[in-house]
């Protein structure tokens, strides 16, 4: 007993001996908003806390991709973020989904939220959680390989009026301002930004390819203890880089878009009922003119085709989303039941090729998804927890596309003892093709080819070990098996082969003190595509090492990321560094360098002459420019 009191006294004194600054820094880490939002039982999570984002000066979701295991920081032929980009393969939102709070950013035709928001300012984001693999149905109902959940700053944690601005080489500049407060019964957060992003130009066969982007972005949130109302508006234009012409020689290639989203979410005081309602609208117009043809149209006289050099495509997309969940707890078991309806409406207002409008050919224009799901979480004893999730979805497709029903199940076990946690999940599910794949498959096959759902099995386990309070270690193994995978080769097909992905990752964090730390992650994907050729196995691996260190009033961040290349692409090494200087309590100045070694991962682009099959290649295009930014943030 004497020893116990002595220990308690020393422990308390050790805590009390810390100065007030260290205690506030420690609380910022330990009471981060992510501690209230992340769902440990939902899967394998990497969290980028508010302090991490502030210190890295991460200013877009695209910049974060280098730090997420298993992802490659690539841009597609329009210069938009797509970690899985392959020439002529359609952007698949089912691979990476992006959520802002509980609202998914998705446009059925435009693609995933990462394409919409990938290179825009994210100063309104508080923290980001990345769920690897297939997470709980409570998090996302439609399939995903990785899920990025970003949470906005909230009024009662901000209480500030802040202005920030930065300039970079190439003439890039951006600025933002936000105002937020907790008032008597509610809190608000309002944000506005403008970004003019200039990128290095790429020369190809006499054409200058541009990836410049401009936008105005506004976000507002009003919340109290149970309700949260959000609105987001994004008005932008982008130069469409390589475009779609046969030689990738655009003369004028740009896209204008307007994205609007509003949502309402409710959570009961006892947290047992959650409901969200969301409506999103996107309209965009892509115009392209090129010195090489964009395609050909049949004609009635020799040579029985006409080449066209211009296209104008105008689309409107709507997404209505409603979800409700109810949780019951009986002794050591909780039962969650949920229902969701997601209605996607997409229209081609104009589909002009060489001045001729083909929009009337696009009859397939909506998808309605009804989902029911449940999750049973049973605490077997102090150390063991079992989670069983089930879900069923009915996809109602319009026009001549077959409707479909898919089912899925997920069984999980979590073992937790002192400083060790082991999570294991077994998953089975069917992934219904996305609307864009269904649309083009319908057009290319004239309605004759109906695609099957992909079947996915996954077995995964993760060990999280904290050998001491300042060291975190994590080791993850997963095997994912795809059957009937959908791929494009002149038309869409379900693969006869079985694709197997074995993934391994190791992550460690070492905290020098409450402010300084070093992070390491190493990952590998071994893909077996089931063929019999020498091309059967593809290995991908990468990692990153990041150091966060404070020196007096200077806050430094250094990060080196690596991804292996392929046959015709060199390995990518991306070195980023940031130094922030706290001039006063109100004013912070920073300098930030991206891709300072100029060896970040490059991409190759290909385009095909549809008449003679000749391929034009555009190689070694850097996905990230070597850039230096100067910036400031002033708190009023």
């Amino acid at each position, binding site marked *: 007993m004497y020893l116990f009191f002595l220990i308690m006294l020393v422990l308390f004194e050790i805590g009390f001996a810390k100065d007030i600054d260290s205690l506030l820094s420690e*609380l910022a880490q*330990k009471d981060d908003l992510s501690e209230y939002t992340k769902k440990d039982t939902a899967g394998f999570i990497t969290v980028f806390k508010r302090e991490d984002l502030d210190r890295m000066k991460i200013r877009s979701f695209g910049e974060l991709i280098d730090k997420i295991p298993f992802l490659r920081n690539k841009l597609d032929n329009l210069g938009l973020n797509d970690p899985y980009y392959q020439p002529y393969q359609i952007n698949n939102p089912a691979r990476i989904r992006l959520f802002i709070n509980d609202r998914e950013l998705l446009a059925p035709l435009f693609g995933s939220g990462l394409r919409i928001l990938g290179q825009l300012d994210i100063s309104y984001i508080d923290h980001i959680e990345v769920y690897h693999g297939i997470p709980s149905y409570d998090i996302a109902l439609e399939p995903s390989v990785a899920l990025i959940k970003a949470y906005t700053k909230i009024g009662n*944690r901000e209480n500030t009026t802040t202005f920030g601005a930065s300039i970079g080489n190439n003439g890039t500049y951006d600025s933002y301002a936000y105002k937020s407060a907790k008032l*008597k019964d509610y809190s608000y957060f309002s944000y506005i930004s403008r970004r003019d992003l200039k990128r290095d130009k790429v020369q190809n066969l006499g054409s200058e390819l541009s990836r410049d982007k401009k936008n105005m972005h506004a976000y507002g949130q009003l919340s109290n203890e149970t309700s949260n109302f959000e609105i987001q508006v994004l008005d932008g234009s982008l130069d469409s880089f390589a475009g779609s012409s046969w030689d990738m020689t655009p003369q004028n290639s740009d896209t204008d878009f307007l994205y609007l989203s509003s949502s309402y979410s409710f959570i009961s005081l006892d947290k047992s009922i959650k409901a969200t309602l969301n409506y999103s609208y996107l309209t965009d117009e892509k115009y392209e003119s090129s010195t090489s043809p964009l395609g050909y149209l049949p004609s009635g006289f020799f040579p029985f085709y006409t080449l066209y050099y211009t296209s104008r495509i105008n689309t409107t997309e709507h997404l209505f989303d409603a979800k409700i969940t109810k949780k019951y707890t009986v002794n050591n078991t909780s039962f969650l039941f949920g229902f969701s309806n997601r209605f996607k409406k997409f229209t081609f207002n104009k589909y002009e090729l060489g001045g001729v409008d083909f929009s009337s050919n696009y009859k397939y224009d909506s998808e309605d998804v009804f989902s029911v799901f449940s999750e049973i979480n049973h605490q077997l004893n102090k150390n063991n927890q079992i989670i069983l999730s089930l879900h069923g979805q009915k996809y109602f497709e319009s026009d001549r596309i077959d409707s479909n029903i898919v089912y899925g199940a997920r069984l999980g076990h979590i073992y937790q003892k002192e400083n060790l946690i082991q999570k294991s999940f077994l998953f089975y599910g069917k992934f219904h093709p996305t609307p864009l794949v269904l649309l083009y498959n319908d057009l290319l096959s004239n309605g004759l080819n109906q695609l099957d759902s992909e079947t996915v099995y996954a077995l995964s386990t993760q060990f999280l070990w904290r050998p001491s309070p300042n060291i975190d270690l994590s080791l993850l193994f997963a095997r994912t098996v795809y059957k009937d995978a959908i791929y494009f080769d002149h038309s869409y097909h379900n693969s006869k082969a079985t694709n197997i992905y074995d993934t391994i990752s190791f992550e460690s964090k070492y905290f020098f003190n409450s402010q300084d730390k070093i992070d390491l992650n190493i990952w590998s994907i071994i893909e077996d595509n089931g063929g019999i050729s020498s091309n059967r196995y593809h290995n991908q691996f990468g990692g990153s090492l990041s150091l966060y260190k404070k020196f007096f009033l200077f806050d430094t961040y250094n990060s080196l990321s690596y991804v292996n290349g392929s046959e015709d692409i060199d390995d990518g090494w991306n070195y980023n560094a940031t130094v922030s200087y706290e001039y006063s309590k109100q004013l912070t100045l920073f300098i930030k360098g991206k891709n300072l070694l100029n060896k970040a991962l490059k991409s190759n682009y290909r385009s095909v002459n549809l008449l003679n099959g000749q391929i034009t290649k555009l190689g070694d295009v850097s996905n990230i420019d070597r850039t230096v930014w100067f910036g400031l943030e002033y708190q009023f």
Partner: protein
Amino acid sequence: MRILLIILLSLTYLFSFDALHVKAQIIAKIAHELVDKDIVNIYTDDESLIKTKGLVPSLNYTTKKNADIAFLTHKDTIEKTCKAKYIFSTSYYNYKTSKKAIGAFFWQKGRPNIIIKSSMLKKLNIKLSQSFQKYIE
């Protein structure tokens, strides 16, 4: 004895404070900075701070009438009902609009923050230690 000390030091190294313990220590730091007593009587109506009760031996959680220092979130309690000599608000809005709050312990720009009114320090004739000087406004 030496072995015992090594064990104790190892244990303290291994002991990890959670967010609630850190909050308790911050409250204790503020309380002992302002109140010159070994055991300080405190009162709070803030739900996230009520849970810190019993975590720090030198704080005695009491009623709003007997407290030396209070950490308050409700405007009415700050302005009308609390009799503590030192009142800290846990809401920036209430601190800004109050004539009775000496300081605030709240979140700003995603970080926990402390601010203390210099006019109230003068009025109450309090001198703060060096480590608290940067929080005076």
